[in-house]
Every structure is written in structure tokens, then in C-alpha cells.
């Protein structure tokens, strides 16, 4: 019984070196597969992270509102009675979340929650001269809001500040109104008109938001929308965005509020992300199957070519297990070398993408990197695939009849 695999290593490496063109081709094949898998993984991860960041960058992961007004039937149906009700839906009005001041610390104490933002939001008009634009009015505490959406990081002009009578405006809305930092315009709601001085223009990442958003102090919005001391919603951000759905369901069962996760508000986006993930998984699987078949086919040919050598080794007393290991090691070596080369290739592709593929603003479309964990994962899978691909050829080699193999 061999004490180490020195013999198997030596024979495996020599066999690979002997058929160096075949070996080189299959290593390049594995490298191409690994590069595609690693690059696509990095690309999709980067794309999804960017999409999520842009989508969730200006909103909470969970939104808690007061429940909608509904019409209650005059009386419940009796057992065995069939009753037809026809009710007119009630017009919804802005309402404050009941006891929101007490709810905020309770939510903030939850381990999943990173920040809670009480907010007053409603619609109105922005007026300046003859210009008139419909707006989404947000009343916030600037420091809390900044923790959720990093508002100060989105400032393109001016300094984010919300003293009484001041406001922050989306940059496209500012262009439509013809205002710059320091200028004033009027915010009109159904109840009140109030003059607002612009302290900063922001780019919220989505054009529609940039064309409609006006951010004012919480108290100013409460006055404008007729909700003194109120908050129309609590925006909650989480450490892990993917826990939003579970936590929203939990909050719905515990509190009498309308709770919505970002997934429910962006169902199409979630579907698109899921479709992307599934497609990426399919592509990765197909590429790995191709890699396995490539390695296996080359090793099968190698077994046929090396038939006589296998026969000689068997005649000399090499065991079936040793022959099996010789070919499994060849698969592993090809898998590992192909993985290393493939990862280098993937890094080069990522570098090329971030340096040469740019948007109209001259900046990279989005940032992609190849995390170590993903790289090691892909390399490990490819190496295991190399060994798996070698199983059938190795078994065939080990099962060869030595007398027949020598005669080949």
C-alpha cells in the first residue's frame, strides 16, 4: 500500500506534461468557463447592488402608515344567510400614525432595524412666477433622514440645511422652476401657502424624484398639510434589506398599522432581480456542465492514448486504486490551474469593464468587483468539477485489462 500519493502525483503530472497541447487546451477551456462564471457573478452582483441602492437609496425598506379608511357593512351576515353588499370606497385623507412618538423607540430597539424616520408626506404645488409644478412634499428631521438616504451625499449644489422656512429641492424641479440655491419659491397645499428658501439641490438618482421632491422641516410640513404634531408614515431602514418582507409581516401581526416592505412596493423590481439571479444560476450551471464535459472528454481520450502505459504500470504492480488516483489528480490539477487562470481573466475583464464601459456622464455604469468569497467559491466549484469530470475516465482506466492494454 502506498504511504503517500507521490507516485500518483508524479505519473499524473508527467501524463499531463506529455500531452501538453491537450492539457493546455483544456486548462484554457476551464479558465474560460471560470472567467465567464466569475465575471457574470460579479457583474450581476454589482448590477443588483447598484439597482437596489438607487431604488432604496431614497426610501425606507419598510414603510409604516395608519390603516386606510374603510366602509364597514351595517351588519354581519347571519349563518346560512347570503348577503350582497355594495359599498362605495371612502375617499382617503391624510392621517397621522397614532402614537408614532412612542412607536419610534420601540422600532429602533429591534435588532434588524438600523434607523427609523418619522415623516410627513403629501402633495402640493410649487409656484414661482408663472411656473407651477406639482410636488411631493416631505417633512423630515434632516439628521434622521440623512441616516436613511445619505441626503448630504446627494447634494449637487448648496449645503443641506433645514432651518424654519428653508427647503431642499430635487435638481430637475429647481430647473423647471428656475430657482438656484438661495432663491425662494412658494409651496401651496390645499390649506396653506408658504414661502421656502432653497438651501441645496439634490440628485436622488431617479429623474421622477428629482422633478417632484421638496424636502422641508417636519414642523413646516405638518403645518402645510394640516397635521400638527403628526407623522403620515414611519420609514424604517434595515441592516439587511432582504429581511424587510419577514419583518413587515411580523409588524403587521403585532401592530394595527399598514406596513409595507420595499419588495411589496417594488414587485416588478423584485421579479426582475429574481429573474436575473435565476438566469445567472442557469448560465453558471450550463458553463460548469460544459467545463465538466470538456475535461471528461479530454481525459477519456487520454485514457485511450495512455492505454499501453496503464497496462505496463498495472503489470508492474500498480493497483487499480493508484491508477484511479492518477486520473482523478489530473482532473484536479486541470481544475485548479484552470480556476487560477480563469480568475485572473475575470479580474482583467472586470478591470476592462470599469475602465472602458462608461455612461454618458463619463463615469463607470456601475461599480463591479470580484469579492474573495465569490472567487474562492467559483474556484472551489471548478476544481471539484475537475475531479468529478475525471471520475468516469479514471474508472475506465482503472478497469483496463492489463494484458489487453499492453497489446494495444
Amino acid at each position: 500500500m502506498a504511504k503517500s500519493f507521490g507516485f500518483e502525483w508524479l505519473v499524473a503530472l508527467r501524463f499531463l506534461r506529455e500531452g501538453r497541447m491537450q492539457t493546455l487546451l483544456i486548462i484554457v477551456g476551464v479558465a474560460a468557463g471560470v472567467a465567464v462564471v466569475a465575471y457574470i457573478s460579479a457583474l450581476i452582483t454589482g448590477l443588483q447592488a447598484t439597482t437596489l441602492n438607487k431604488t432604496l437609496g431614497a426610501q425606507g425598506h419598510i414603510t409604516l402608515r395608519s390603516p386606510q379608511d374603510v366602509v364597514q357593512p351595517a351588519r354581519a351576515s347571519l349563518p346560512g344567510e347570503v348577503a350582497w353588499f355594495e359599498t362605495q370606497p371612502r375617499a382617503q385623507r391624510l392621517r397621522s400614525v397614532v402614537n408614532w412618538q412612542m412607536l419610534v423607540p420601540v422600532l429602533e430597539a429591534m435588532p434588524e432595524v438600523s434607523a427609523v424616520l418619522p415623516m410627513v408626506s403629501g402633495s402640493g404645488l410649487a409656484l414661482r412666477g408663472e411656473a407651477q409644478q406639482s410636488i411631493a412634499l416631505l417633512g423630515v428631521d434632516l439628521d434622521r433622514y440623512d441616516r436613511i438616504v445619505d441626503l448630504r451625499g446627494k447634494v449637487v449644489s448648496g449645503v443641506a440645511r433645514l432651518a424654519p422656512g428653508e427647503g431642499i429641492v430635487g435638481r430637475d424641479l429647481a430647473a423647471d422652476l428656475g430657482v438656484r440655491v438661495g432663491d425662494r419659491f412658494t409651496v401651496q397645499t390645499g390649506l396653506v401657502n408658504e414661502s421656502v428658501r432653497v438651501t441645496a439641490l439634490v440628485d436622488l438618482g431617479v429623474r421622477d424624484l428629482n422633478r417632484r421632491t421638496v424636502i422641508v422641516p417636519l414642523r413646516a410640513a405638518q403645518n402645510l398639510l394640516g397635521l400638527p404634531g403628526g407623522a403620515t408614515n414611519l420609514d424604517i431602514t434595515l441592516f439587511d434589506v432582504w429581511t424587510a418582507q419577514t419583518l413587515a409581516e411580523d409588524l403587521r401581526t403585532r401592530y394595527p398599522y399598514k406596513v409595507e416592505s420595499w419588495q411589496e412596493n417594488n414587485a416588478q423590481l423584485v421579479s426582475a432581480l429574481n429573474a436575473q439571479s435565476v438566469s445567472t444560476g442557469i448560465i453558471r450551471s450550463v458553463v460548469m456542465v460544459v467545463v465538466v464535459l470538456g475535461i471528461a472528454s479530454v481525459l477519456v481520450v487520454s485514457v485511450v492514448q495512455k492505454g499501453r502505459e496503464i497496462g505496463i504500470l498495472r503489470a508492474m504492480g500498480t493497483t487499480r486504486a493508484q491508477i484511479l488516483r492518477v486520473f482523478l489528480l489530473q482532473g484536479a490539477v486541470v481544475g485548479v490551474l484552470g480556476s487560477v487562470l480563469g480568475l485572473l481573466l475575470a479580474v482583467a475583464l472586470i478591470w476592462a469593464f470599469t475602465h472602458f464601459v462608461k455612461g454618458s456622464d463619463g463615469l463607470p455604469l456601475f461599480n463591479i468587483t470580484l469579492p474573495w468569497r465569490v472567487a474562492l467559491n467559483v474556484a472551489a466549484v471548478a476544481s471539484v468539477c475537475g475531479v468529478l469530470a475525471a471520475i468516469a475516465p479514471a474508472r475506465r482506466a482503472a478497469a483496463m485489462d492489463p494484458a489487453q492494454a499492453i497489446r494495444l
Partner: protein
Amino acid sequence: MQQAQEATPLIVLKGIHKSYNLGLPSQTEVLHGIDLTLAHGEFVALMGPSGSGKSTLLNILGLLEPMTTGSYLLQGEEMRGLNDAGLTLRRRQTLGFVFQFHHLLPAFTALENVTLPAMMINGQVSAQQLQHARDLLADVGLAGAEHKRPAELSGGMQQRVAIARAVMLDPPLVLADEPTGNLDQAASSEVFVLLRRLHAERGITFLVVTHDAHLAERCDRRLELVDGRLHTDSGMGGTHPEILSSSTL
């Protein structure tokens, strides 16, 4: 102990039959009841026309092919019924092979080819084994060719490397299948002289399959196989010390 071991014949074949395609209409019997005893230290030629079953008999002796019926005692141990692992172990411990077409591993140097049997057992080659392999190569006249690959060696040189490899672990029996069949006359003679010398110096039993009647005459014992039957068994058939004392080249 050594004497007791040598008192037991190295090989005893009794009623060896070998058929191919068993149970099929094309079933063919190649060997028809071979009885043969080889003592330690014999130098035996096995002759016979093509298709007489020489290679089959050699494969059975070399534990590369199973017999259909019969009994094969190798150093007193019955080989019939051993599984592949058992047969592989006996091949490793007892047998050396020299093939007609040298059958060296082309990816390895001459020295590596010779050390392969030791490497196969331990997974590495000790300094002592490496020196032994170098000595063997020097002994077969290839002192300067240690690091040459088979493709860089002549046919005769390759065959000498194959012989060094076959005796690397000092097996009691070396089976040589037409070791000179692919060589010119001068190289054939050199190889044969080498085999005889190794036999004389190391006491290894040689069974040499050959078509060359002149070489066969220079063996101590000659077997002739015709149509799967041993027709002639001529020679001394003695044990190693007797043969060594009367061995002539």
C-alpha cells in the same frame, strides 16, 4: 529458510486450460492442459509458432490473465481465485516483465523508468534505491544515459533499461516476451548476454519467449508450445545452484 523456499518449486502449473469467449458459439480453447514446473534459478526458453498460445501462457504466468481451469502454484501459493488486489500484490512482489517493444514510459527518463517500481510501492524513492537504480543502469551499460528519455535511446538501449526496471526489486521471476524480437542481431546478442549475466549474478529465474532457435539453444531448458500443448520440455530442469554451476553463455 532460504533453502526451504528454494526447495519449493517457483512455479507449478497443473492442467491449465484457457478458453476465450466462454459460453459463446465462438468459444476457443487456446491452452489445452498445460503442466509445467519451474524451479528457482532456471533460465528457460519458451518457443512455439505464432498462435500457439505463448503469450497467453506468459500472461497467465504473469498474473495478467486468469486461467479457465487448472491450478497455478506460485512459490507454493495457489493463484487461482485471488482477486485483482491479490494478483497485483503478487505481481509486485514476485514478477518482473520485459516486453518485446520495450514498453518504457515515454514521459520518464531512463533512471525514472527504473525507479518506478520502488516509487510505486513507497510513493517516493529512497537515496539507497536511487543509487541501486543508478548501479543497475551502469550494470546494463547505460551509465551516461540516466537522464535520457526513451525516445533518445536506441532499441537495444531501451530494452536494457526495461531489463534494469524488471530486476529493480530483485523479483524471483522475470518473464520476458520476445525481448530480442525487435532488435538487430548484434543488439539481440547483447541483450541475451545481459539476461544470462543477471541470471548468473542474481539467481533470478528467467522465462524467455523467443522465436530465435539459436538463442533458445543457449538457454538451460527449452519448452515448445504447439497448438496450446507443451510438446517438448528439454534441458536440465534443475534448481538454481545446479544451473548456476553449469551455466554457459
